[in-house]
């Protein structure tokens, strides 16, 4: 498979990279992990005139938890790094759960969380996880930074909200409003396959209740779906068998699946209900155990 001709630049600073994007005026694409972009170029579904390879910008290769409890993931932080991250294991269970389920081990070695958000594939795992956490993307352009909530970041299938001269330099998860709990479950026909359906649940628990809840769905709509009604049920009523069942039904109701070779619409909706319920039951069960 042979991609069409393209120019290649490897800047060493973000400012330099932004300069190249300005020059390219819409014909340039940023290359981070390349796990989606390169196959698309080889199959000629994408044909950028220029690749701006940011892998030389070492400033972007980090993830950390800041003093206020927020978690920040740089544009070059690989999935594999997150999979092995003690920071996530200790402080962010939804991300920790998802990090081992993204694509396959080979893709995880190269691919990045921020790149996955930029790719805006409705079947991408990180978009649902980050949406459930109320996270944002930090975009840097020639005039400075702006913060874009993940929910507004994907504007359609494979379309993000970045201007042509902006680079997504990081994703930021806001500080939790209690003890963070959560999980991510997805159905895939095979490791590395895109999700048939996936559910991300993030709860901040305090004083036996739910201070904040986020539920987001992978692969069951034209973009990542945030199940707001389901989350509201949990905040209002806490975790009990009835509220869990109702929230699971509400999450299934929010899904907008289509029948395809990964399964029927009905089945995908059913999976959302099962997965939501399973994650919530596990959280409820483990806090009972702790008590």
């Amino acid at each position: 498979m042979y991609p069409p001709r393209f120019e290649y630049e490897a800047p060493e600073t973000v400012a330099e990279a932004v300069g190249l994007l300005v020059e390219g005026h819409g014909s340039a694409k940023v290359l981070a992990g390349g796990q989606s972009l390169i196959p698309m170029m080889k199959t000629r579904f994408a044909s950028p005139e220029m690749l701006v390879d940011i892998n030389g910008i070492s400033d972007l290769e980090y993830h950390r938890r800041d003093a206020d409890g927020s978690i920040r993931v740089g544009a070059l932080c690989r999935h594999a790094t997150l999979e092995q991250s003690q920071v996530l294991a200790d402080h962010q269970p939804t991300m920790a759960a998802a990090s081992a389920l993204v694509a396959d081990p080979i893709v995880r070695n190269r691919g990045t969380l921020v790149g996955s958000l930029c790719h805006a594939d409705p079947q991408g795992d990180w978009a649902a996880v980050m949406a459930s956490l109320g996270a944002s993307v930090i975009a840097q352009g020639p005039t400075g930074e702006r913060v874009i909530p993940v929910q507004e970041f994907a504007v359609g299938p494979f379309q993000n909200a970045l201007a042509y001269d902006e680079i997504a330099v990081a994703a930021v998860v806001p500080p939790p409003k209690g003890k963070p709990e959560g999980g991510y479950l997805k159905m895939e026909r095979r490791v590395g396959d895109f999700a048939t359906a996936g559910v991300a649940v993030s709860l901040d628990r305090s004083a036996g209740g739910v201070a904040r809840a986020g539920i987001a769905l992978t692969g069951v709509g034209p973009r990542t779906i945030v199940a707001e009604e389901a989350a509201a049920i949990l905040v209002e009523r806490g975790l009990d068998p009835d509220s869990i069942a109702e929230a699971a039904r509400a999450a299934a109701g929010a899904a907008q699946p289509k029948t395809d070779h990964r399964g029927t619409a009905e089945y995908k909706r059913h999976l959302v209900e099962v997965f939501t319920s399973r994650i919530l039951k596990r959280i409820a069960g483990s806090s009972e155990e702790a008590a």
Partner: protein
Amino acid sequence: MTALDEIKIGGLGASRRRVEDNRFIRGKGNYVDDITLPGMLHMEILRSPVAHARIVSIDTSKAWAMPGVRLVITGETLAARNLAWMPTLSYDTQAVLATDKVRFQGQEIAAVIADDPYTAKDACEAIVVEYEPLPVMVNPYQAMEDGAERIRDDKENQPDNVIYDWEVGDRDGTERAFAEADLVSKIQLHYPRSHPSPIETCGSIADFNRATQKLTVYMTTQAPHIIRAAVAMVAELPEQMIRIIAPDIGGGFGNKVPVYPGYVVSILASILLEKPVKWIEDRTGNLISTGFARDIYLEGEMALRKDGKILGVRMNCIADHGAFFSDAQPSKFKIGLLHSAFACYDIPAAHLTARGVYTNKAPGGVAYRCSFRVTEAMFFQERMVETAAIDLGMDPAEIRRVNFVRDDDFPHRTAFGFLTDSGQYTKCLDLGLEAIGYDTFRQEQEEARKRGRLLGIGISTMTEPLGAGNSREFDILGIKMFDSAELRIHMTGKALLRTGARSQGQGHETTWAQIVAHELGLPAEDVTVEEGDTDTAPFGMGTYASRSTPVAGAAISMAARKIRAKARKIAAHLLEVSEEDVEWELGRFYVRSRPEQGVTIQEAAMAAYSNMPDGMEPGLEAIAYYDPPNLTWPFAAYIAKVEVDPETGVWDVLRMVAVDDCGVRINPMIVEGQIMGGLTEAYAMASMQYITFDAEGNCIGSNFTDYLLPTAWETPGFELHEVVTPCPHHPIGAKGIGECAAVGGPAAFVNAVIDAVKHLGVKNIDMPVLPDRVYEAIKTGKDVSGAPPVRTDG
């Protein structure tokens, strides 16, 4: 003097490490794409984006104008040389490059030859083709409708889309069996289309030298000699001026038996340009245009007595062949060896009808680790037997025992007329059942159900015909199915062995040397094995259908025995006794009355060049051509234990037990590797690996994102057991093994899932047994049949 230890010299039964792996694991293999010739150009193929359309015009002017483009070839270029169509091995014709219309998505339309592959690809995209759409038929039922558009309007005497109607067996006898039955069990099945997808795609480098008139083609082929014969016949080139070289081959699985348009066009391009022309197919090209497998429908009926005895079997099959009937299968039977079904059961009467149909899909049908539809045969057989057990309320192991051919009943003539050679079927099944703990399983299953868990065990038992052919029933273009070996013993006792087979990963370089070690007592490491070059290897029919050991392997034994016979005369001469007084033990001749006086095979070899008896022709070489008296009939019992998640339909393999009887095992490690590979592919068929099409004829499965091959993550563990019933008609008692697990395995997995849900009223879920289909079956208590849905909305 103690006799040689056969295991130590790497003879029969030695799990010798694969000698070819030395280069493969170091990245030093030599595949077609590794080869670069001086002045070599690159070819890319333009393929049709639509499945059925008349070609209104092809404008190549922009491609010609691109710098670096040397040649653009269309169907018109070929038609001028009478090469636009080529014959297939099934006596049909196939378009090389489309001239009149395109008949499937991915069909070859034009080729560009350029200085580099990037330019060639760019130029392909610059070719403008105007299409006039025609109705698309993606299954045989659409293609058989009244007034359906004729796909093969190029053919006279082809009024519709039916390729053939064929039948075999005893129609009247079967009729009578059904009249006497206590119960008739029925099932409808679809074995979905799949693709062998070797990791190395197809490709060739054609190098025509005007000065010598010699055409050398490096080619990804499993059968280089057949290709040479085909090129000689089709292109009318002198056969001695054609050299086909199949270098290292990165997997074949039957995908690399047919002749593909890319090969043909690269050869013509080299002749026209007088330069080497390389064509390497991309992944999508391989998946959407080259030899696929299966895609066949069954209506099966079984006449049963109350005690489980099968009185008769009826099979009505419809095979979807795609746009051309290009099965690369050498049997005299239109539907291949589909009627090898039920060979392990003693059944009084059987009848099979088969219809082949053209559709707007890629041609092929018999590839993928399969002896010409034995995979479908055994899957249908074992699903029918399982259904019969459910209908009778009988234990699925017991119904098999009741119907097995008995150990003392060989050779056995099957209801469809094959002659099976040997086996111990009940012993194999019982060994497997014991290994998986079948005795206590039903209780375990019952208790699990009470706790809401669904467990199932699935059994698949079968014997299959491996090792085409025997020249009475098998030929390719009239060439009888035999095979060959040429063995040269050098004067220092080292050897060079060449065969007409072609390894694609099977490990011939290792196992062939072991056969020589067994026959002559030469250490296996002293034997170099070469295959794949038609200028050096003796004529052979290639490697597929698990035929290498049954046929070429036998030829190696026979060649080695010729060597031994001559060496015995030399030994008698050296020992100064008459030949009758010479005895043989592994690696050494000795005098019967004085065993301490002997001559090693190496000493005899030296004497063949330095001290031969008067009047004896010098040298120690032999060639043998082996025409097998019959196919070999390995047997297998595969037993899977699964757990089904009732909420999601996901099923996990808890255990998979395989009992294989492939006769004498030459290299047990390689045999086990073959079985594990086959079981992996069996699991793939059952769970995920299929190609389907949407209503417009778009191939769903044109890359590895959509066409799923299982990885180490999904593949279950396998527990292997063996039984050895030597093949009575093979020189070393070996039977084929390469395909067994891929053939017999799928039914074990499907039967296991069905066993877990049959109490809900479910008797069938067609493959692939995807979680959503299992969930639907559980929820509705009904069968889930047909190809999975592709797109129903938006």
